[in-house]
């Protein structure tokens, strides 16, 4: 096991902090992909302009014109609040979630709504779900759209989660909605996991997705959000979804697809053809870079550094641009 991880370690190191610019404008079927990986605590602002991705480190955000950040639609992604977790990596996850809310309320462009990409709770307990919902009531944006993480469906096939956050969703918890011409799809890839496997969407959900997007014009911007990454980040740690390729296959006709995930407690970004993949920070505790620890368990950092490795993701949609601008900011 250890030697196996060492092998992958080198692979992860190759792409670490790498920002590749692809000036190719040929769009959808481009084989080469562009990577912009921002590890926990560093953060990057990425904007696609005419097929060229521009990325800036968070340290330069202050120098930028705030008007560049404005668009037709702005929302915030938060993830992995793990309410109920109380170990050394973060003994007070409620406090850091409240800090995330403060950060949201301080944004110069108020978001229209929040997306929570799962692991709302740590142990699927009613009081953990309710604790998060209560704290998020303090956010300027009142609507919160959730998808479950594996920690939210530990008992009874996710009954407690679905009772609270699954209203209006399909029986399995997945759903879609429209906001200002952008089509959002909330997906569930944490149920019925098989021994040795990765995240799974399952046939029922895939069939639903195919029908859900069939009638949409190819110019409709698509945002897919789910807990476990819908791209293979690091299979040895289960950081991927076995049948995500099939889901992405149904989205091939669209010019702009943004995939937002959580689960890995660090930011990472990849652009492949028409699809931009992004993972968000946790509001609770960081996890190690792929293969750089014996396991993906909580990473302990000195208390004074904790908030610099937690964060929120601010997403801006500007009509006419190829992709949504995604900005990560830490809670520090």
């Amino acid at each position, binding site marked *: 096991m250890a030697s196996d991880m060492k092998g992958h370690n080198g692979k992860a190191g190759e792409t670490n902090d790498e920002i590749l610019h692809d000036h190719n404008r040929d769009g959808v079927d481009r084989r080469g992909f562009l990577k912009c990986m921002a590890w926990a605590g560093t953060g990057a602002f990425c904007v696609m302009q005419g097929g060229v991705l521009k990325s800036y480190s968070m340290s330069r955000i202050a120098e930028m014109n705030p008007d560049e950040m404005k668009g037709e639609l702005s929302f915030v992604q938060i993830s992995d609040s793990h309410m109920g977790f109380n*170990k050394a990596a973060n003994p007070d996850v409620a406090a850091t979630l409240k800090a995330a809310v403060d950060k949201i309320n301080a944004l110069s462009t108020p978001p229209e709504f929040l997306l929570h990409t799962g692991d709302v709770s740590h*142990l699927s307990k009613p009081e953990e779900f309710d604790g998060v919902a209560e704290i998020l009531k303090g956010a300027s944006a009142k609507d919160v759209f959730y998808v479950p993480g594996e*920690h939210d469906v530990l008992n009874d096939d996710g009954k407690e989660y679905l009772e609270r956050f699954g209203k209006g969703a399909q029986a399995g918890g997945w759903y879609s909605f429209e906001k200002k011409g952008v089509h959002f799809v909330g997906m569930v890839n944490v149920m019925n*996991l098989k021994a*040795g496997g990765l995240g799974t969407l399952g046939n029922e959900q895939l069939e639903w997705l195919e029908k859900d997007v069939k009638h949409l014009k190819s110019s409709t911007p698509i945002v897919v959000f789910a807990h476990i990454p819908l791209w293979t980040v690091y*299979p*040895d740690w289960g950081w991927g979804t076995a049948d995500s390729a099939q889901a992405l296959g149904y989205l091939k006709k669209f010019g702009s697809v943004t995939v937002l995930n959580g689960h890995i407690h660090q930011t990472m970004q990849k652009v492949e053809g028409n699809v931009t993949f992004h993972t968000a920070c946790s509001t609770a505790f960081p996890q190690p870079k792929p293969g750089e620890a014996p396991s993906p*368990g*909580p990473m302990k950092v000195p208390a004074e550094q904790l908030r610099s490795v937690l964060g929120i993701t601010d997403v801006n949609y500007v009509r006419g641009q190829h992709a949504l601008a995604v900005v990560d900011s830490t809670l520090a």
Partner: protein
Amino acid sequence: MCIGSLAVAALMGLGGIAAERRSFAASAQEKPASTAEVKIDNFSFGPTAITVAVGTSVTWTNRDDIPHTVVSTEKVFKSKVLDTDEKFSFTFTKPGEYPYFCSIHPKMTGKVIVQ
């Protein structure tokens, strides 16, 4: 003469063992013949494969900061969610191989071999 008495003694001895086995089987309902431990550390089961005798009770202990489960791939046993330091035990009464995994982190797999 000597050989004959030895044979008798041996037969008596065997009878004694058989009687002891019966009484042992009766008490196995409450108390397993032996125990074995599997530790959960760093998102893995240790040892990954464990070989035990029929009647052994295997106890899993979660020593991670993250909850895990112990679920038989063939639905023979299934723990509730084990938070840090929580335990789950199962007594294996039939020989065979019992693959299992963590239903939250399915990359975590293990096996109990009962002989």
